[in-house]
C-alpha cells in the first residue's frame, strides 16, 4: 500500500468540502436502521481539530512576519547536519529559530543550539511517543519563542517519512531530506511525503562514488510523484550544492516577508 497527498488541495479544497459545516450547529440527522440500531450522520473530518489549530498558527505567523519551514526525513538522512550548515550560512542575515521534534533525546537540539539560534526542544514522549509533530505540540513550543524577532522558524520534524506528511503545523513550505544511501526507491515507497513537500534535498552526494545510487532514476521517480518540484543535490558534509539550496530558501522567505 502506498500513500500520497496534495497539501494545497487539502488546505483549500478539502477544507471546504464536506457537509460537516452544516452540522456544527449541533443538529444530527437520525435514521432508524432495520437491525435495531439508529444511524446518526456525523460527517466530520477526523483531522479538523488539528487543521483548525494549524490555521490559527498560520495566521499568527503571517501577522508576525515569520516564515515557517517544516523539515522532514527518515532517520539518519543527515537532516540535523544539513540544518546546522544551513543556519551557519543564513544567519545573521535572517533571524532564525528552530523547533526540534524528537521522541526522547535532546541530542539534535544541543547540536543546533551551537548555531546561536534559539532552539526549542519537543520530546513527543510526553505526547505518547508520537512519530510526528501535530499542531497542538508546535503551538506549545511556539509560546517559548519571541516571534517579533524571528524571520525564519525551522521545524525539524521527527525522522519518519510517513506520518509527519499528514499533519499541517501551520508551515509555509515543506522540505524533505533524502540521503543517497537510502536508495532511489524511497520516493515511490513514500509518495505522500514527496507529494506533500515543496522541495527535496538529496543529501550525502559526497558518497556517490561508493554507491550504486541511480540519480536519474531517483529524479524521474520524484518527478512522477511531484512534477516540477525542485530537487537539490547536496552534501551536508562538504556543503557541495548548498548555494542553490540556500538561494531557494532565502527567496521563499523574502517572498513572504515582503508581502
Amino acid at each position, binding site marked *: *500500500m*502506498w*500513500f*500520497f*497527498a*496534495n497539501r494545497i*488541495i*487539502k488546505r483549500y*479544497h*478539502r477544507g471546504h468540502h*464536506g457537509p*460537516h459545516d452544516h452540522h456544527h450547529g449541533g443538529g*444530527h440527522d*437520525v435514521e*432508524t*436502521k432495520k437491525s*435495531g*440500531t*439508529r*444511524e*446518526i*450522520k*456525523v*460527517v*466530520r*473530518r*477526523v*483531522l*479538523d*481539530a*488539528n487543521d483548525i489549530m494549524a490555521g490559527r498558527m498560520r495566521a499568527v505567523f503571517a501577522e508576525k512576519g515569520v516564515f515557517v519551514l517544516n523539515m522532514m526525513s527518515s532517520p539518519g538522512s543527515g537532516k540535523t547536519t544539513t540544518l546546522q550548515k544551513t543556519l551557519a550560512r543564513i544567519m545573521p542575515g535572517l533571524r532564525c529559530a528552530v523547533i526540534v521534534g524528537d521522541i526522547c533525546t535532546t541530542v539534535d537540539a544541543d547540536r543546533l543550539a551551537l548555531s546561536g539560534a534559539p532552539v526549542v526542544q519537543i520530546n513527543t514522549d510526553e505526547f*505518547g511517543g*508520537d*512519530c*510526528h509533530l*501535530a499542531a497542538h505540540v508546535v503551538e506549545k513550543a511556539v509560546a517559548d519563542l519571541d516571534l517579533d524577532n524571528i524571520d525564519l522558524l525551522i521545524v525539524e520534524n521527527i525522522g519518519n517519512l*510517513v*506520518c509527519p*506528511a*499528514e*499533519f499541517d503545523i501551520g508551515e509555509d513550505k515543506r522540505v524533505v531530506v533524502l540521503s543517497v544511501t537510502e536508495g532511489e526507491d524511497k*520516493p*515511490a515507497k513514500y*509518495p*505522500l511525503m514527496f*507529494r506533500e513537500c515543496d522541495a527535496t534535498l538529496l543529501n550525502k552526494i559526497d558518497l556517490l562514488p561508493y554507491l550504486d545510487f541511480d540519480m536519474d532514476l531517483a529524479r524521474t*521517480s520524484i*518527478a*512522477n*510523484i*511531484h*512534477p*516540477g518540484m525542485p530537487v537539490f543535490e547536496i552534501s551536508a558534509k562538504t556543503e557541495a550544492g548548498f548555494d542553490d539550496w540556500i538561494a531557494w530558501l532565502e527567496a521563499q522567505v523574502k517572498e513572504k516577508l515582503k508581502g
Partner: protein
Amino acid sequence: MHEMGIAMQIVEIATASIPADMQCARVQRVNLKVGKLSAIVADSLRFCFDLVVKETPLEGAELVIEELPVVVRCKACENQWTVTEPVFVCPVCKSGDIDILSGLELDITSIEIEDED
C-alpha cells in the same frame, strides 16, 4: 505511527455526536471513509481504536473503514483517471498539473447506536 492520535480523535468526535436523549446507549459501529492517500494503516487504526474505546460509550464498537480510491483530473486536458501507482503525470498529455478528486478523505460519516426502544 500516528493511528493512536487519530483513534483518540475519532472517539472524541463520535462521543460528541451522541444525541442528548441517547447518552446511555451503546455505540455499536463507527463508519469511517479513508482515502487511499491518507497515511492510515487500517489494521493499526483498528488496533488503537480497540484500546482507546475502553471505558467510553464506544467500548466494544466496531470500526468500519470504507477505503476510497485515488481519482485525479488533469487540469490541462480534463482527463480523469484512477491512480494505482505513484505516478501523477497525465497519461494523455503528460502534464503534472492535477486536481485530486478523491483519495484524501479521513472522515467519520456516521455512528450507529443501539436502539433503546
